[in-house]
Each structure stands twice: as C-alpha cells, then as structure tokens.
C-alpha cells in the first residue's frame, strides 16, 4: 500500500493518566525509533500542559484491534442486555470516578 518509504520510525500509541489511580487514556500517537525516543517524543507532544502524572507508550503493532468487519459479532449482542451494566444501583454520595 505505501509506495513512499516511511523514514520517521515506528508508530507508538501514547496513553496518559491524568491523576494517580485513574485509568490511562489514549492521547494520540508518535513516531520514534526506540523506547527511549518514544517516551521523550510523547512527552514533548502530550505532557507539556499539565495533562498527566503517568504515561505509557506502546508500539502500535503490539495493539490488537477488532477488525471493522467483526463489529457486529463483537459488539451488537449486548445491545438489549442493559442488566449487564450496574445501572440499577444508587451510587453512594461523594463517590467520584465510577
């Protein structure tokens, strides 16, 4: 597919944790040739404005994603099973980040 050779290195996905204890969220991607360069490039792109307290970079090809053609079999069967969500509980007051 790609006729033009990519000289920017491997693609890495960046995940940032905004506060200790919270889950890491996908922030974007960077190019880099190895781990050290990947974490530094990610820092320069994504954490200069107080975005987080923790960061992961993961080689994009290490991520296994659901193929778009499998969407129906993976996600649709849960559409009518609302009881799979804990939505029938009252949350205690003052509970955040549920």
């Amino acid at each position, binding site marked *: 597919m790609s006729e033009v050779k990519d*000289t*920017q290195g491997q693609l890495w996905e960046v995940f940032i944790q905004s506060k200790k204890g919270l889950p890491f969220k996908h922030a974007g991607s960077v190019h880099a040739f190895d781990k050290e360069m990947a974490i*530094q490039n990610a*820092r*320069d*792109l994504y954490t*200069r404005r107080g975005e987080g307290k923790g960061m992961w970079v993961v080689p994009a090809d290490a991520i296994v994603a659901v193929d778009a053609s499998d969407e129906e079999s993976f996600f649709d069967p849960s559409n009518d099973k609302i009881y799979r969500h804990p939505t029938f509980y009252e949350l205690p007051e003052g509970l955040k980040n549920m």
Partner: protein
Amino acid sequence: MEILDLSKFCMRLGDSCLILAHRQSEMCSKGPFLEEDIAQTNLGLDLLGQAEALLIYSAKLEGKGRTADDLAFRRPEREFYNFMLTEQPNTDFAFSVVRQYIMALYLGKVYEALAKVDDDVLSGVAAKAVKEIAYHERHLGMWIKRLGDGTEESHERIQIALNELWMFVGELYEEDDLDLKLQEAGYAISGEEMKAYLMEKITAQITEATLSIPESVYMTTGSKKGIHTEYLGFMLTEMQYLQRAYPDAKW
C-alpha cells in the same frame, strides 16, 4: 556584592539564554522529523522563558527604566554578554545538539546554585528552570549517544561539531571580578568547580557515544566584555529587525 553586580550577572545569564533560545528557534521546521522538530522548538521555548525572567529582573535591578524588551531589542552587539558558544550557528543538526547539550550542563549547574540563594525572584526562576534543563540534558544527551554511536556518517558529523565548538567551552568556567563577587555572595560556584563538573559529564557522555574529546588547547575569551564571533551580529540583525526598522512600533 552590589545591586548592579547582580543586575549584570542576570544580564549575562539572560543573554546566554536569549541567544541560545533564538538559535534554537531557527531549528523550527527544520527538525529531522516532526516529533523532533517539536522537541527542538520546545527546548527553545524553555530557554526563552528563562531569558525573559532573567532580563526582566536584570532591568529592574538596574533601575534605569529599561524593560526586558529594551535589553533584547535595543542593545548593539558589543553590549551583549552571552557566551560565544550560544551564538554558534546551526551548521547541521549535530552542531545544534552539541551546543545545546553543553549549555544544558552549564545552565543546570548554574540554576542548581541559584535555586538556593536568598532572593525570591532568582531562586524561583532557578527552581523552575532546573526541571526544564534536566530534560534538556536528557534529551540532548540521548542525541549525542545516538549520533556518536550511530552510523559512520552521524559519528563523523558529531565529532566534527564537537571539535569545532570545543574552543568555546573555556568561557563557561572562566572568571572575572564580577564572577568572584557573585561566588563570594554564594550565587555561583567557582570556575574550577564548573570546569571539573563539565569535563566529568562531557567525558562520560562522549565516551559512551564512542566519540573523543578534542585535543585543541586554545580557548576563546571575551564575551564577558561584549566581544563576539562574527555570527552574533548577523543574528541580531534578524532578531532586532522590527525595532530597527520601526522604532517604538506597537501592535
């Protein structure tokens, strides 16, 4: 130590940061790839922030009604006191890396001392800058190693940059009367201590990068008296263009 001594000291340090920041800003859009381009520009922005804080303070202590902008844009070449190393051009990426790396080591040590002084402005500026510069050292150190221990071409180019820039390192640990006064007041470490620190750090990094320390013994001197290499004048022409062409322009 008198207040004007402190003003001059801040001006020297601020000038080095400003000129280094401007050189670094010239790298914007010229990085080897997008991510590094942003990283390089970020380094420049950090230095510009430090320059601004130091020049604002210098102007205030001086008490002549000048602003930081006046200092940056209305002084001729001979009234700039930045180290000659900081004005050296971005001949290629290796030159920028070596210049910025050596200055990061120097600035890190300077700010480390300043963070402890009994002066809220300076210790505040320094405490923030120490963190920024620690990253500069890490990022640029990575490039020294990567280029030095990379391909034959990158190894040769960074060794050339090191050889060419080496004669400007001596100024970083040279002392004049003002330095001695500041040292006595606890604002700076001695030249000897700075030299030992720089040599130890550079030698370790260079050796790891399979490079060698240049043997040249000649070291330039003069920037503390406003003497510069030919490059500063050209840089100021561009940097100060607006104020020179349209004095007092406002927008």
